[in-house]
């Protein structure tokens, strides 16, 4: 009798205690409003993404039948949110798949952006996800539609005999035509083509910085950048991927973007002046492929 009573009491106590708590959040954590600091971001890309950026020398006509004046692989690691821009001098002497050895800029002329991408994949071992290509007018148009760009010019120069770029050293706001001239200038720099490709990489980094700061002030900026790219460039990126890559780009801090130019030595093949990529570049490719950044 006593046992049954005790069991009944225990059962009732358990029911009375537990039932009101079932289905309710644990009060210690969930009861207080979230008044602490929260900062979280999420973007839909995963892993490492590599984009080939091509600047061709087409002034009009078919841009695929032109030479590549600017060749850069942009890598982004979405885990670390670090990025890298690897610059290739256009005179780099490389093996072009199915075409023998030639200057790397000829790959575009011989097989379009796809062949240039394959050439770089063979050279570096990096799998390129997308390519974006822009010509002289296109590049100038993009910069104009974006309202110009600000970047640091390392050396004062006067390239009136070449691209027409005349700029003082230091931070400058470049209009479209100035940006194009600076991107093309090489004769007034001792490094020639190598200096030019380095400057182009710096310009890409400056554009990342511009996108980052503008989108922080107004998130809709991204849509304008996408529109400018779609208007002036050719690419193998779908509209959805372009949007998602753009979101990714807004999230990358310019401080986490590093640029590098492949190490080269000057030389000749026949009468043609070329540059040979040094064996030391292999370690850069390896690091870039592994980390998605430099």
């Amino acid at each position, binding site marked *: 009798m006593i046992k049954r*009573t005790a069991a009944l009491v225990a059962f009732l106590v358990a029911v009375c205690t537990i039932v009101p708590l079932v289905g309710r959040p644990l009060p*210690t954590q969930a009861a*207080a409003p979230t*008044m602490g600091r929260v900062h*979280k971001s999420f973007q839909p890309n995963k892993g490492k993404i590599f984009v080939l950026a091509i600047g061709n020398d087409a002034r009009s006509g078919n841009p695929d039948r032109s030479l590549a004046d600017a060749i850069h692989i942009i890598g982004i690691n979405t885990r670390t949110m670090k990025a890298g821009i690897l610059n290739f001098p256009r005179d780099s002497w490389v093996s072009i798949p199915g075409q023998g050895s030639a200057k790397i800029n000829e790959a575009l002329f011989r097989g379009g952006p796809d062949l240039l991408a394959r050439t770089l994949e063979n050279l570096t071992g990096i799998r390129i996800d997308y390519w974006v290509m822009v010509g002289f007018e296109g590049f100038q148009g993009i910069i104009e539609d974006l309202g110009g760009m600000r970047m640091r010019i390392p050396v004062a120069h006067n390239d009136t005999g070449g691209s027409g770029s005349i700029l003082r050293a230091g931070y400058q706001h470049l209009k479209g035509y100035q940006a194009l001239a600076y991107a093309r200038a090489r004769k007034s720099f001792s490094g020639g083509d190598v200096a030019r490709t380095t400057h182009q990489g710096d310009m890409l980094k400056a554009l990342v910085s511009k996108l980052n700061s503008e989108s922080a002030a107004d998130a809709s900026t991204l849509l304008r950048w996408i529109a400018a790219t779609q208007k002036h460039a050719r690419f193998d990126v779908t509209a959805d991927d372009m949007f998602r890559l753009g979101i990714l780009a807004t999230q990358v801090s310019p401080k986490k973007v590093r640029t590098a130019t492949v190490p080269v030595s000057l030389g000749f093949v026949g009468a043609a002046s070329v540059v040979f990529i040094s064996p030391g570049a292999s370690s850069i490719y390896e690091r870039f492929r592994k980390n998605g950044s430099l």
Partner: protein
Amino acid sequence: MRRVGIVAPVEKRAGVAIAAALTLAVTLTVGLALASQPGRRFLSHGLGAAEQETPPLPQARWKFSARPAGGIGRITKQQSRDVLQQRSALRATVTSIYDALFVRPTELGAVLRNNFTPPAARSFKQAEAGVAVPEVTRTVYRRADVAVQPSYGVRRAVASVAVRAVEVGKQQRMLHRATLWLERPKDTWKVVAFEVVQEPVAPRGAKGKTG
């Protein structure tokens, strides 16, 4: 013949009475102990019938705008119309997300499922944005500006959202700011990416900053 009675024998009735008394005593003790614990004062909210009848706190009115953005050159009338057509759908998406965050947190799971891509929903849940107990928190400012890409079938948009909230009867205030990147793969808008910052702000009139 054995009689089956529905009334318990006297000694059994005494046992039940003792059990009932003990149960009542224990329940009262447990209840008082729970109620007196600091930090659990919001537990009783919504439990009692009287409290369930408490009218919901008034919330700030939404200030909402949706505009075409990102067009280079002129936007055609057709594009403007297309953007305008999406205005109510975008408003519904954004307001349902924020109602769930600040007014009806129990609906948050369903709202995230309906309005976010699965990976974005998972990540947003972990952000723990919004408020856990809406009964004591009131929004005093809610604004959403949505920029819509007019080209490519009006399928991408960026929403900038700002919400200010206060804890009723206290000085605690918070500011919530977010950017939501949205896509419309079919008919409904989905958040594919976000950035959210939520932080306490100094009470009105207080000097310096908190947090």
